[in-house]
């Protein structure tokens, strides 16, 4: 009798599942690095796990990690689409054209491409205003430096990275007009040993606060070993140097991933060009180290609140470039279009911007 009841329940259950097939979405993720990099890919995978936690069995996710940008990416994305995924997040700039190409052949699958600028009928884009957090961390760095030299380990001179350097420098100079930001390009997104050597080079040139736009925590660790300060990027990197780590500029993709998955569930998905920041909680700073004086902490948090409320913007004028020419007048501000194509350094960056 009992087994019959179980059978009936099972049948009813499976029937329910069949009827609600539309209420279950398959979401695929394509990552450029390993999920264990503690950086960029890690922040995306955390958000994927969050979506699973929130939506339970309504969602089924799968991911492919360490997918090289280029021909291989197209194959991976096409594979995911062919396997019946309803929504696919492609999380690196270089996946832009492969994503668009595959999207054309799978008009019923929705695609979301991170950091790109091309959309189509079923391809939306999303990005984080990480520069807002960069600006806040710049305020901290400007206050904490004693040598007035701040080191910045950077990957490649593309607008996204340059925007971060400029926002950071703007924060630094706002609280400390004598400080300069020295940039070293390592020409890689991920190579812990090389990032460390770049950090050492900057320390040799008197930098006493470091930050990085690369994917590992080696810079924080080097700062800890040398007894200076550092500011992390992508995720909270305090585990790598509890004394050195002042704060980190972090991404939190959870709001975007949850909203987009829900939109596909409810059949309300539309293609958008999302650029969320502090206000939406997609960009933030990690908890501030106690080495930072209370008044500085209060100032940083007040600026964060102002960014959130929209009363200030990071690139409000007056802004001068390196040669001292005023690029943005007082009362004006850079548009989103300007920000997406940043190709010059603001005043306070030491060194010449290389041609990318």
């Amino acid at each position, binding site marked *: 009798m009992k087994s019959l009841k179980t059978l009936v329940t099972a049948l009813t259950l499976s029937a329910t599942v069949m009827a609600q097939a539309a209420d279950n979405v398959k979401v695929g993720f394509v990552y450029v690095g*390993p999920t264990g990099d503690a950086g960029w890919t890690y922040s995306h995978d955390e958000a994927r796990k969050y979506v699973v936690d929130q939506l339970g069995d309504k969602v089924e996710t799968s991911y492919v990690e*360490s997918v090289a940008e280029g021909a291989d990416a197209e194959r991976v994305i096409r594979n995911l689409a062919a396997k019946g995924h309803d929504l696919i997040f492609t999380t690196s700039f270089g996946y832009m054209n492969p994503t668009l190409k595959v999207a054309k052949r799978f008009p019923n699958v929705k695609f979301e491409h991170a950091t790109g600028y091309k959309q189509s009928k079923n391809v939306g884009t999303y990005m984080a205003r990480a520069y807002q957090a960069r600006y806040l961390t710049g305020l901290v760095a400007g206050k904490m430096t004693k040598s007035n030299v701040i080191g910045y380990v950077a990957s490649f001179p593309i607008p996204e990275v340059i925007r971060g350097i400029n926002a950071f420098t703007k924060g630094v100079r706002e609280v400390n007009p004598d400080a300069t930001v020295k940039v070293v*390009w390592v020409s890689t997104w991920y190579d812990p040993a090389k990032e460390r050597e770049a950090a050492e080079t900057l320390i040799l040139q008197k930098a006493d606060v470091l930050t990085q736009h690369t994917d590992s925590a080696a810079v924080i660790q080097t700062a800890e070993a040398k007894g200076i300060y550092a500011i992390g990027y992508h995720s909270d990197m305090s585990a790598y140097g509890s004394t050195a780590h002042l704060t980190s500029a972090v991404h939190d993709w959870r709001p975007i991933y949850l909203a987009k998955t829900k939109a596909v569930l409810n059949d309300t998905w539309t293609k958008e060009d999302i650029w969320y920041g502090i206000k939406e909680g997609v960009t933030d700073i990690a908890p501030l180290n106690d080495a930072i004086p209370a008044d500085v902490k209060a100032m940083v948090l007040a600026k964060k609140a102002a960014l959130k409320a929209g009363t200030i913007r990071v690139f409000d004028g007056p802004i001068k470039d390196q040669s001292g020419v005023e690029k943005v007048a007082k009362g004006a501000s850079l548009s989103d279009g300007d920000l997406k194509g940043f190709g010059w350094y603001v005043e306070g960056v030491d060194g010449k911007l290389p041609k990318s």
Partner: protein
Amino acid sequence: MDIDLITNILYATVRTGTPLILVALGEMVCEKSGVLNLGQEGMLLMGAVVGFMAAVTTGSLFVAVLLAIVAGILMSLLFGFLSITLVSNQVATGLALTIFGAGLSAFLGSSYVGVGITGIEPMSIPFLSEIPIIGKIFFQQDPLVYLSFILFGVVFWIFKSSRIGLQIRAVGENPEAANAMGINVHKVRYMAVIFGGAMTGLAGGYLSLAYTPLWAEGMSAGRGWIALALVVFASWKAERIMLGAYLFGAASIMHLVMQGLGFEVAPNLLAMLPYVATIAVLVLLSSNHMKTKLSAPMSLGTPYRPQV
């Protein structure tokens, strides 16, 4: 450039070259015996992850280094079993070992990402470290760097004037002849492969315990492949491997330092410098075609099947 800066650059050079030296010396011994092991990158990652896990769990850096070496040896035994005992294709097996090592290390290390440890610290050698310039460059490094000097000496001596070196070479040149002379070809090849595994495991430990004391997936960032290329360009000579590795290190450091000094060269061009400089110098050194040909092991990559 002042002398302090140059000293600092050279100091960093030695550190940068060390993992390449360890991997390349091990692979050189392996290749001299006629076995081409393309699994260096995978073994390097396994050494790194096992060493790091051991450091976190046991708290002893010494144990951690030993276990990194053991991890490298186990990986090389797997390679040896497949390519020597089962006579599989060395190239395919080596590539499989790299993929396997990368995947397994990521799997093992997944819960160790974000864990911080105190790594192996530099240790000055008394007296030697006080020599001006040279002392700072070579004798204020960490113990694993000193170990690399010693291991260089050992490998150099093996091929310069030891019986075992002759046996390895005989096996690598002509295994049939070596067999006829009474050398156990499989035994010598196994030993060479295991030595290579130990060296690469040690290099992995150097990365995750001394150079950047952390574990992150794929942290070797292609150093295994660079070391493999180095062996060929150094035409299987230990002293040239040493030279090439330091040259590569120096050029990598220069790429960073020159930017700080305000040289207006595109960093992408500077990033090529290590590869270009190393290849150029080693190719010039081995420009004598006949000599180079002689130093390449004749039966490199060819499995040996004992005649029944």
